[in-house]
């Protein structure tokens, strides 16, 4: 057990932060939901960040950390599936961006993706769409969203591949949600520190402080659940991390908007760039009840299987 980053991971974090510095602020004139920057994707690609899970001494933990850090930017970029799922599927050779299409619904980055992971019930397929196969759609989810509209050729995933995809999509959801929630909390803290009512900052009122502190505890815990799942590649850890992301994500998104009052209803304030991305994660992989089903299978062994008192 050692929670320190190794030297390579620390170097990566520094490089990533330097790269991200150019994308930390929402453009003042932007009043929409999905804020993207082609330059960000290109910068990440040029620096080979999408392959870090495969590098010795970096691995999936570094990839999860990168996904978390990049999710804190106001810009939506297709990082989570590319950094955490793609390296584990077919030797990491499939073209990116990746996107997930679940039960025929609109999905994040579907209109940009070169590889689609298609889930229909429990059946998984992949496809490489052409421009005529997908249609961009405007939504309130702060991602570029699209819908698979053509009859693109699909290749089935083997049961083992499907299990791999399920596991790593769950890790990706957790890592991305942890970053989104942390950024949304940071943004809200700024507002609560600056905005004064009744002659003092909102953030000095205990009714708000305690709720914010609870949000901080939840995201701190989610951070560790996500990193542990990336490190262990365990199906139970992955399901639990994704469950927590979706379970606390719903609560925190609403809570933080409440903290901002009417300012949180505007598209001028950046909060929605994180919270409405977070909302886009809540239904993935069947939502929290489906994750709970997986937790029930993988995390609760029968007592006869246990050795001793079970704190291990």
């Amino acid at each position, binding site marked *: *057990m*050692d*929670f*320190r*980053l*190794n030297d390579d*991971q620390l170097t990566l974090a520094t490089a990533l932060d330097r790269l991200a510095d150019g994308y930390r602020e929402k453009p003042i004139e932007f009043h929409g939901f999905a804020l993207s920057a082609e330059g960000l994707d290109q910068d990440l690609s040029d620096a080979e960040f999408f392959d870090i899970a495969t590098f010795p001494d970096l691995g999936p*933990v570094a990839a999860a950390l990168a996904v978390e850090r990049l999710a804190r930017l106001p810009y939506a970029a297709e990082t989570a599936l590319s950094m955490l799922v793609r390296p584990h599927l077919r030797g990491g050779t499939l073209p990116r961006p990746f996107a997930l299409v679940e039960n025929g619904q609109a999905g994040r980055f579907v209109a940009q993706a070169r590889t689609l992971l298609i889930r229909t019930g429990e059946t998984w397929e992949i496809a490489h769409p052409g421009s005529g196969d997908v249609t961009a759609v405007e939504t309130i989810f702060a991602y570029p969203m699209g819908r698979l509209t053509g009859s693109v050729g699909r290749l089935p995933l083997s049961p083992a591949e499907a299990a791999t995809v399920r596991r790593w999509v769950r890790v990706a959801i957790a890592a991305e949600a942890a970053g989104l929630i942390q950024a949304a*909390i940071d943004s809200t*803290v700024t507002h*609560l*520190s600056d905005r004064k009512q009744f002659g*003092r*900052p909102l*953030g*000095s*009122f*205990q009714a708000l*402080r*305690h709720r*914010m*502190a*609870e949000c*901080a*505890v*939840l995201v*701190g*815990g*989610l951070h*560790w*659940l996500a*990193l*542990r799942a990336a*490190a*262990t590649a365990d199906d139970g850890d992955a*399901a*639990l991390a994704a*469950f*927590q992301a979706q*379970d606390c994500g719903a609560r925190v998104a609403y809570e933080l908007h409440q903290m901002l009052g009417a300012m949180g209803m505007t598209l001028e304030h950046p909060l929605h760039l994180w919270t409405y991305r977070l909302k886009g994660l809540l239904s993935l992989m069947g939502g*929290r*009840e489906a*994750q*709970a*089903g997986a*937790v*029930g299978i993988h*995390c*609760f*062994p*029968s*007592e006869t299987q*246990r*050795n*001793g*008192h*079970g*704190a*291990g």
Partner: protein
Amino acid sequence: MDFSWNEEQRVFRQTVRDFLARHLPADWESLAHGPGSASQTAFSRKFCAHLASAGLLIPHWPARWGGRDADPWTAFLLAEEMWAAGEPRGGQYMNVNWIGPTLMRFGTPEQQARHIPPMARGETLWCQGFSEPEAGSDLASLRTRAEPVDGGYRINGQKIWTSYAGEAETCFLLARTAPGKGGISIFLIPMDTPGITVRQIPSVIGEGDIHEVFLDDVWVPADAMLGTEGQGWSIVGAALSLERVGIPRFALAARMLDRAVGKLKRSGAFVGGVPTQAARAKAACDMSRLCAYGIIDRRRHGVPAGPEASAARYATVLAERAVAEFVVEHCPDALAGGDPMLLAHHQRAIVAGIASGAAEIQLNLIATDLLQLPREPR
């Protein structure tokens, strides 16, 4: 970053589990019904002496005091296994976690020689005389007075919510020698000192857990003071920083959740919305575990715990609550005589957010020190 245990840690955990298997009686779960009860205290005295003989009571203490300078992970693994088993050390866990180490740091050679060896042998129980009727969360407002008299101090006042006081031999007592935080001093007082009266308070937690302690003209010699006059507040701050992630409550909560889910699965009742609630409780337990591990990792590497220790403490409150609520809703029969350990956990879980400082104090610390929100006006 590594989330696995090394070979030495795996072997140590198994050693502790083997010890528990050999030394816990078959009816242990029925016995573990009141952490401060006379029966558990009597059992704990024998159990801790065995632990000490096996080198498993104080492995993290310095060799000078009978330990082997083991790292903080060893101490925490030991604490996890003990708490998961229902804490057979009883109140002696406090000696191991913070009273002993605090005396090593602040005690005189005479105090150390008198008090530490019995702790290291697992022979003695202490209680913590902190809270008072008018000083709970606002501990610094305590009123118990210690007035200098010939050769020592005369102490008058009242303590309340004092765990283990009915069976303890010694009290780690806070009393006021002058106004303000800088006027708080610590006294190490035998509980059989004339003038001390202990009254048990019946509680939902279980037998013998909380007490009132009355101090009427209690004379103590000057050498009963730990540190110097007025040093009490800073000593307690250092001591409680060891205690903030001291009890791995998640370990028993997770074990009881496993047990409850096992019962529900076997009876075909793990259906509908139950798995979602179970997952919520499981996530709370694992978040509590990992947040605590984050603090132990810092301790291991000599990094101050910081406000994350308060977050870890609050995560524990969430875990205890989630499991307690899950069990009371889905396994009510276990609490009605069906499973004494599930009952014991349920009774103890309510303590998580109250003992060692209210959860709301932790939330304030998180808001100010972790989130950097503006302070409340005072």
